[in-house]
């Protein structure tokens, strides 16, 4: 039954139906509504015997999750941005230990400058941590992905991060079909751990591993990620058979047949991009979209296949590697044959800057005219940048960058 629900509420209700045994989190916008809702459900007994632990930091939140998961409990947490960075040592550790924790990442920019709005810098900062990273396009998909996430995590002994755009999804109210408890129960069996802290069968977990075995242990973790490339689509298909919904999977191709120009992107911006593509298709242009739903493991073969035949590929991404360029784009380039399409990266939506349909159409136009550079920043105010560069050149003590820029923007020297 479709209901008007806030994205966070839809996620919380879905996580609840996954029967978590330990939920532990630390508040940070825009993740708060999810854990508040779950906290209330534990408090009123609806999730019994689930434990909800209010901790003093994200580092503790992930660490409690590690302990709970190692003791055999189905464990859930959620964070964003600074919170993810604050727990990063434990994020790597959970994956290294092979603990199937599920975490919602309400994607948000990373400071400084501090910024609570959406982009993908946080997810990209932990892309090598060994977590499966799934990106939701809509609130429906965000909710559904959590059921699949527990299934994948527990089947593979790998933690899964469900990435959903902060505010754009977490705080948006839209129609969501909440999954039935009975469907979840048939899809998600009780958690059967591969390794567990049990006094009746004591094992040591977390030993020092030296050069004699470290590479093999890490390679096994890589293989489990590659296994996920097989499992993610089959789990999504099974889910679709039960619910009729095409949530999850590796890729979301859209109008790719005969497409000469393909935009690759992740998350909620795909909706806007599809609208733009629809408009350009009306105008007779051969354009399409490739949504990347599974960023880690990265579906190299499937991406290569999907981009086969494209002449121009434009990666629109909400993060970048300073001094280098696109992050997703680098992976897409790896998937493209050497003699493959022209590849351009458009960094967009940083710190919550809107990406409109007009913006995307503009990108497609520039691409068609051959004026889209290999790396560009959407709607960058060159004037503001030039002013700050001039200040820096003029004086050594030019002051704090961000505050200078803010002042320029506020006094109208900026965006017109």
């Amino acid at each position, binding site marked *: 039954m479709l209901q008007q629900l806030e994205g966070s509420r839809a996620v919380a209700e879905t996580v609840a139906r996954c029967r978590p045994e330990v939920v532990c989190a630390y508040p940070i916008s825009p993740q708060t509504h999810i854990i508040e809702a779950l906290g209330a459900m534990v408090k009123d007994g609806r999730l019994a015997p689930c434990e909800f632990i209010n901790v003093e930091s994200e580092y503790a939140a992930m660490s409690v999750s590690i302990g709970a998961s190692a003791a055999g409990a189905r*464990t859930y947490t959620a964070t964003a941005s600074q919170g993810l960075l604050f727990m990063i040592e434990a994020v790597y550790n959970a994956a290294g230990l092979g603990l199937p924790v599920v975490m919602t990442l309400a994607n948000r920019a990373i400071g400084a400058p501090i910024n609570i709005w959406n982009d993908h810098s946080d997810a990209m900062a932990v892309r090598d941590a060994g977590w499966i990273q799934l990106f939701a396009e809509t609130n429906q998909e965000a909710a559904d992905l959590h059921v699949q996430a527990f299934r994948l995590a527990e089947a593979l002994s790998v933690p899964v991060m469900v990435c959903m755009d902060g505010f754009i999804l977490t705080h948006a109210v839209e129609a969501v079909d909440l999954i039935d408890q009975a469907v979840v129960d048939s899809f998600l069996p009780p958690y059967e751990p591969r390794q567990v*802290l049990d*006094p009746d069968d004591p094992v040591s977990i977390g030993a020092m591993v030296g050069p004699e075995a470290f590479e093999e242990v890490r390679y096994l973790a890589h293989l489990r990620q590659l296994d996920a490339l097989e499992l993610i689509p089959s789990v999504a298909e099974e889910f679709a058979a039960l619910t009729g919904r095409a949530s999850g999977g590796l890729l979301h191709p859209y109008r790719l047949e005969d497409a000469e120009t393909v935009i690759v992107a992740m998350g909620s911006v795909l909706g806007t991009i599809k609208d733009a593509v629809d408009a350009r298709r009306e105008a007779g242009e051969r354009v399409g979209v490739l949504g990347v739903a599974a960023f880690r493991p990265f579906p190299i073969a499937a991406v290569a296949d999907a981009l086969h035949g494209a002449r121009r590929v434009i990666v629109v991404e909400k993060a970048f590697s300073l001094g280098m360029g696109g992050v997703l784009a680098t992976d897409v380039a790896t998937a493209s044959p050497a003699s493959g399409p022209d590849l351009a990266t458009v960094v967009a939506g940083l710190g919550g800057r809107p990406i409109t349909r007009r913006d995307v159409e503009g990108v497609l136009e520039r691409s068609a005219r051959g004026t889209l550079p290999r790396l560009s920043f959407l709607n960058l105010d060159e004037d503001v940048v030039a002013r700050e560069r001039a200040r820096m050149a003029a004086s050594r003590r030019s002051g704090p960058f961000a505050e200078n820029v803010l002042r320029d923007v506020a006094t109208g020297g900026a965006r017109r």
Partner: protein
Amino acid sequence: MTETRVHFYQVGSFAVGNRLLSDADRTVQASPERTNSLDAGHRACQGCGEALGARYALDAAMRATGGRLVAVNATGCLEVFSTPFPETSWRIAWLHSLFGNAPAVATGVAAAMRAKGRDDVRVVGQAGDGGTVDIGFGTLSGLFERNDDVLFICYDNEGYMNTGVQRSAATPPTARTATSEALGADPGNVFGQGKDLPRLAMAHDIPYVATATVADLHDLERKVERAMTFRGARYLHVLVPCPLGWGAASADTVRLARLAAESGFFPVFEAEHGVVTGVRRIRRRVGVEEYLRPQRRFAHLFAGEGRPDLVARLQALADANIQRYGLAPEEE
């Protein structure tokens, strides 16, 4: 003539022979039923106080819980020397995650056990002084504040030994470490305010806080068992001399632990719900010098003309402990 029972105490140590004790008072180690939680095969240095303390503490915890125990370990000597795989020395369920998060991981294990209806399984978290008073302090304070059902044990060897003997917030003033060299006008570690973890734990009003040393292993065992009679957060701070880091003879570990207590430099007490309920009074008081001299980390206090001024300041710290906890021997 009436018969009087004669107790034979070991000369110097006052330790009573195990055979003279009633069954209930005998050490857990005397029983063939002991777990050997930390078994052979570990790689601790000869005379390692931490290995000794951990073995006694965990075997006592195993007895107290009827074997229903999970241990969570922070990074540090204990973790590294106990799991030179494939030869883990642990015969209990054991998890190591990170250096600073053992308290939170222990909380997670306890939460999982509760959710699974396994309240009978108890959890011990353990770390060195670095993992407790420094990098783990935030998560430990969180555990205390929530009163999570975990016994947390700090094995205090007064420095970061695993990484080569650097200073921690538990390193005593003037002690030489690799990051507080015996150089300059104020050689060794600074006289700071200290970070007295047992008292910080008491400030959280948790059910049980105790200190112990490896010089009195019966006392250590008894405190572990006492701790296990409570639910909620409990904290045990055990002084464990480190021959390598302290520059002491391997054979002197127990003697140094005893001198630390007998000089008042390390106060041995227990507290319930924030109130001191018992102290281990000094039997035969010694000056701190007797404790400091056998340790090379304090050698600069006695070389050449020595630094009687600094020794006096250390003595003042011991005196303050004796005053605070009423540790003075009966006859004084």
